[in-house]
């Protein structure tokens, strides 16, 4: 359905105009009068405000809310379930008209949604699903698989297929963040294997990045001794920050020549450009989340039908195409650029496999069909 030029199923992700937004607000107010009698108010609960990804999401939402002329109340869930619950309550206390939740874990969703339903407040959930809320966010299995496959193909181009098999894949994980983000890192491994074929499990090293730069650095430092001199070190991680920390550690150990990195999220563009070993990152475009979220919210408030799941479209971001996504950065041709192809069969098989995993049975709607 098209809502003043916004169709969630075919939206390109560029911010809609202020006029369009204003028209949406008019519709929304007509269907749902502002609860404070003056202005529509959207509550946004951010996951943890000092994570750059989350901040970019927040900035996108702020920009859209300002353009639409609606009020925004922002809280910080601080990666904590109890805080998320208290924050949700504070939204109800403030009579917000709509809530955008970016919270820690799918399992906390039910309780928060119960309160929201009681108060008749609609919710969009970002990246972590909540029952009965519209889901908007990353396509975890696909983005992970893309990144892993890209890493494999780029590594073959750089080191040759035989040498790659002697190398090590190091994945910076975040195990405590749950099954849904884990689809990303598992996808990375599957994608990598899909691209390089047989690859010994013993040569896959997983480290816990604890979602910080310094921990990624430290743990990469710790494992680097396990990787024999001269073999390829192929690095990917849960996000660009972790990938960067790992990259720094390898560089510091003086083994940059053996290194190849594919990031996740494309939110450390400067590093991507500056570091030759950092060849690509899977684009998440968090700064565009707001472009989806605010129109989606207004659409729901206006009483229009919205799909229950809106997944982000991901693209590989490289030195060669970065300018297409981020105008502030220039594109540059690199000699080792590759033409990326998603190994479709392996990808299908991977999706089949994870659909059977018991821990994902509650999140099947987040597993794409293609």
């Amino acid at each position, binding site marked *: 359905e098209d809502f003043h030029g916004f169709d969630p199923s075919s939206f390109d992700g560029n911010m809609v105009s202020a006029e369009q937004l204003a028209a949406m607000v008019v519709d929304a107010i007509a269907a749902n009068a502002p609860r404070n009698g003056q202005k529509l108010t959207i509550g946004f609960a951010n996951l943890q*405000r*000092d994570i750059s990804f989350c901040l970019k999401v927040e900035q996108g939402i702020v920009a859209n809310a300002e353009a639409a002329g609606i009020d925004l*109340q*922002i*809280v*910080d869930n*601080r*990666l*904590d*379930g*109890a*805080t998320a*619950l*208290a*924050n949700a*309550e*504070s939204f109800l*206390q*403030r*009579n917000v008209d709509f809530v955008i939740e970016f919270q*820690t*874990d*799918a*399992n*906390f969703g*039910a*309780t928060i949604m119960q309160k929201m339903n009681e108060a008749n407040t609609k919710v969009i959930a970002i990246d972590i699903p909540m029952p009965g809320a519209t889901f908007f966010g990353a396509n975890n299995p696909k983005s992970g698989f893309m990144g892993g496959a890209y890493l494999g193909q780029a590594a073959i181009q750089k080191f040759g297929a035989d040498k790659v098999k002697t190398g090590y894949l190091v994945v910076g994980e975040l*195990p*405590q*963040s*749950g*099954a849904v983000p884990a689809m990303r890192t598992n996808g990375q491994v599957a994608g990598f294997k899909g691209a390089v074929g047989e690859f010994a499990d013993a040569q896959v090293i997983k480290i816990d990045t604890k979602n910080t730069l310094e921990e990624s650095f430290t743990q990469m430092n710790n494992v680097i001794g396990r990787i024999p001199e001269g073999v390829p070190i192929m690095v990917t991680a849960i996000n660009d920050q972790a990938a960067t920390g790992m990259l720094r550690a390898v560089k510091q150990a003086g083994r940059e020549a053996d290194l190849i990195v594919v990031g996740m999220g494309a939110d450390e563009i400067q590093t991507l450009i500056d570091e030759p070993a950092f060849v690509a990152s899977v684009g998440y475009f968090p700064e565009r989340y707001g472009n989806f979220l605010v129109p989606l919210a207004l659409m729901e408030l206006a009483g229009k039908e919205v799909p229950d799941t809106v997944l982000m479209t991901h693209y590989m971001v490289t030195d060669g195409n970065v300018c297409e996504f981020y105008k502030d950065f220039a594109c540059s041709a690199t000699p080792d650029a590759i033409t990326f192809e998603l190994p479709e069969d392996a990808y299908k098989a991977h999706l089949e496999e994870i659909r059977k995993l018991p*821990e994902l049975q*509650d999140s099947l709607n987040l597993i794409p069909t293609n």
Partner: protein
Amino acid sequence: MATTTETAAAAPSLKRRFMELLAKPWSGVAMLLVFYLILIAVFSILSPFFFNTRNMLQIGLNVAYIGLMAAAGTPLIIAGGLDLSVAAIAGLTGVMISLLVGLGVPVWVAVGLALALAAAIGVANGLFTTRLKLNPLITTLGMMSIVSGIALVLTGGLTRPLMIPGFNWIGNERVFSIPIPLIIMVVTFFALWLVMTKTKFGRFIYAAGGNAEASRLIGIPVERTVIVLYVISALAGAVAGTILGAMLGAAGPNAAGSQLLTVIAAIILGGTSLNGGRGSVWGTLLAVLILGTLNNGLTLLNVSSFWQDVTRGVVLMLAVSLDQLRNRALGE
């Protein structure tokens, strides 16, 4: 000397009465109460959403599980102990309940087993720090690491659902419109206050922390007292974990971990001395409420979480200064 007596007589009963009030043992708590009331007044003026029954109860509900841990930590610190593992125990408890229920154990039996496990951890903390005389900070920090490690291993690091019929009411229901977690917290504070001030055991707590050597000398079972307090702290952690799990409908392996510093800060801010021998649960309660109110009020005012950090720091310092002002006035 003649002059001194004269001036003392000149500025008569009023100032002196005030000084006498300040010198009362509960005057430190009274200072915190004043601070709390000022905080409430300020937020009431600044935010239209703040001062109403619902929000006040909400603050109580938000801090209930923190308050429980801080309540039980207070007599422990007074007796000269310290429990850094309490929040990890809360996390493990939620996880245990969820896992046991998953294995088919009835939920309240699961809660009972989880409490028993917590008690065992408390006994271990107590034995290590008293009988083996290990440093409490390192011992309970080590225990924290072990307990939360086990919770992570058991769950594979994942948060587990905890929506169980007949269970979640303990986190969500209200009695006479007062949330049950808040009732549990208040009852705990009251019970601890009774124990600490009215019973022999309670006096032993203060004696043991004030001067363990002297207490032992007059036959007070110092070690047993401290062990019991470690168990109480661990149990409070377990109850906090149960309540939190019931409230959230889910159990994270490290659900309460981020609140450990808040718990310790509340106890110390409440006037309990880390050196032992001194403190009261009411001070802790006020400190918990102050921290919770600050959080709630600033959030309602839409203050960014970064500025909230700054504000919290300033408020902590101000609150602790008050007590010092009192000491100054008393000429100590």
